């Protein structure tokens, strides 16, 4: 279906990534947000708070991130598309409810504008050190989707994508921005509503009598009903059967948890998005994401000017990790260079997928700034030898 034109601010705008993310959410149909202010993410909800009463929806500033991250899920079960926005310390507080969203299959979006950590860290400065937290932060086994925009335009485009994926797979989608992308201002083109594709909620067509909230039919994603529609269904964070009833047997646990994981892993190739260049002749591939991909771009350009055969693989989807792509490349390239604003997180995934068939150079940075292009270049040169 097409976007509701009321939420779409068609035109060319010169706005930062935080504002673009908000416009993406509105274009995607988000009409409910619960937030708690935290630098450098606050602009997203500030804009939403200003915009949403003129579009038809609700924003509430909650008392903390614990509340925000579950209030939005109440909104979803009442029928709204909903999201929340935070940064590291708040993202840590939200972990329990990311697990709840995964377990209850609540489609929603968590935006994390990453800043330096751990703890309060560097409130106004960038990092990309929540990448593993996005994947594994809540307890137990589950799967999520995580996207990494590298420009304000992508903050708009991929926020829509994030909502669409959350609806298609009924998972919480992590939108992993970073402070630089969040606060960087560039032109953002917002197309007309009829050019924006929206994935509608997978609402049940079953009768009240037949409906079972966690019964799957053909695929691994159950259909949903909303409160107030007469289905009188039950939702719980406890291990549950297809009726949604708590069931404490290992069999039910196994069936449920594997399905929660498999609905994402079995579709990983379809979900995985990346941007590639010069991979055909590459000896070395730079794997990067978010703001770092733009720093890497300069290093790649310089390296190629110097005659080095360097390719680019930019992760747009961080989770599920595009393992297959790395595996294929590992058979024919010498090395991967992985610069990131952390002490080596996605580099571990690259190394794992490469399985020893190509070397992985992890180019770490503790955050607070970005790499210098020349530092990436140096490692490219080293890796090319």
């Amino acid at each position, binding site marked *: 279906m097409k976007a509701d034109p009321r939420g779409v601010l068609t035109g060319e705008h010169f706005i930062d990534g935080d504002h673009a993310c908000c416009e993406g959410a509105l274009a995607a149909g988000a009409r409910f947000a619960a937030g708690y202010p935290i630098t450098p993410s606050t602009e997203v909800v500030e804009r939403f708070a200003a915009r949403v009463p003129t579009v038809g929806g609700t924003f509430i500033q909650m008392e903390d991130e614990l509340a925000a991250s579950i209030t939005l899920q109440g909104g979803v079960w009442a029928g709204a598309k909903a999201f929340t926005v935070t940064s590291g310390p708040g993202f840590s507080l939200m972990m329990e409810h990311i697990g709840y969203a995964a377990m209850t299959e609540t489609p929603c979006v968590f935006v994390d504008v990453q800043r330096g950590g751990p703890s309060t860290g560097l409130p*106004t400065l960038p990092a990309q050190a929540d990448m593993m937290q996005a994947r594994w932060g809540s307890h137990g086994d589950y799967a999520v989707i995580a996207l990494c925009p590298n420009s304000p335009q992508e903050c708009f485009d991929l926020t829509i994508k994030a909502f669409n994926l959350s609806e298609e797979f009924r998972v919480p989608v992590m939108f992993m921005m970073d402070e630089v992308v969040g606060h960087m201002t560039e032109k953002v083109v917002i197309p007309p509503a009829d050019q924006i594709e929206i994935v509608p909620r997978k609402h049940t067509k079953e009768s009240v009598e037949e409906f079972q909230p966690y019964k799957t039919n053909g695929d691994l994603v159950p259909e949903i009903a909303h409160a107030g529609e007469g289905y009188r269904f039950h939702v719980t964070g406890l291990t549950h059967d297809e009726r949604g009833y708590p069931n404490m047997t290992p069999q039910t646990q196994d069936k449920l948890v594997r399905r929660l994981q498999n609905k994402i892993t079995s579709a990983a190739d379809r979900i995985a998005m990346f941007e590639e260049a010069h991979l055909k002749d590459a000896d070395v591939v730079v794997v990067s994401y978010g703001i770092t991909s733009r720093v890497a771009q300069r290093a790649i350009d310089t390296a190629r000017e110097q005659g080095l055969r360097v390719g680019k693989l930019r992760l747009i989807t961080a989770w599920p990790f595009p393992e297959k792509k790395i595996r294929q490349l590992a058979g024919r390239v010498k090395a991967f260079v992985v610069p990131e604003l952390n002490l080596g997180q996605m580099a571990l995934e690259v190394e794992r997928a490469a399985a020893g068939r190509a070397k992985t150079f992890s180019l770490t940075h503790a955050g607070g700034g970005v790499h210098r292009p020349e530092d990436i270049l140096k490692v490219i040169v080293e890796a090319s030898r």
Partner: protein
Amino acid sequence: MQLTEIRIAGFGGQGVILSAMVLGKAASIFEKGYATVTQNFGPEARGGACSAQLIISDAPVAYPYVTQPDIMVVMSQEAYNRFAPELKDGGTLIVEQDLVRVTGLDKKKEIKVYGIPATRIAEGLGKKMVLNSVMVGFFTALTGLLDPDAVRKAVADSVPSNFRELNLQAFDKGFECGSTAAPDNVEAQLEAETVTEG
């Protein structure tokens, strides 16, 4: 519009960020170029050191930061002391001449220096707040980097409607000064301005 690195710096409340936004908007919305603005700010809401980086190009901008600015606009002594040494050889330095004393510039770098009493001009127009539009006008005339009409549109598009006229006047005033300004002639410029205002 080849790739040009610009740094604008001063203290909070001078419209440092807005100046960069206006120029970036002119380049990427009202002209067919590309622009990226990044900003650095501390925890202070007002009065702290403030700096914006603007990259303007005819191709998409990858690396969003200034490495060696081609053009620098400084509106405080602190900003001058901190950033002026970064300037590229042959680069352009634009200063708020009442707030910045240009000293210790490496002569060999052949930097072109232009000064304007933007704050005073803005006060003359009735609102100190519009000094950034004076600066933007001055910048536009001096550098020839952007189409003046595009920048004018960007000014109008970026300020609250009740201050639109005033900002456009400020822009025009700055532009006028810039059209006649000569480099390395801060004193002369100051006198010229005083005369104009009288």
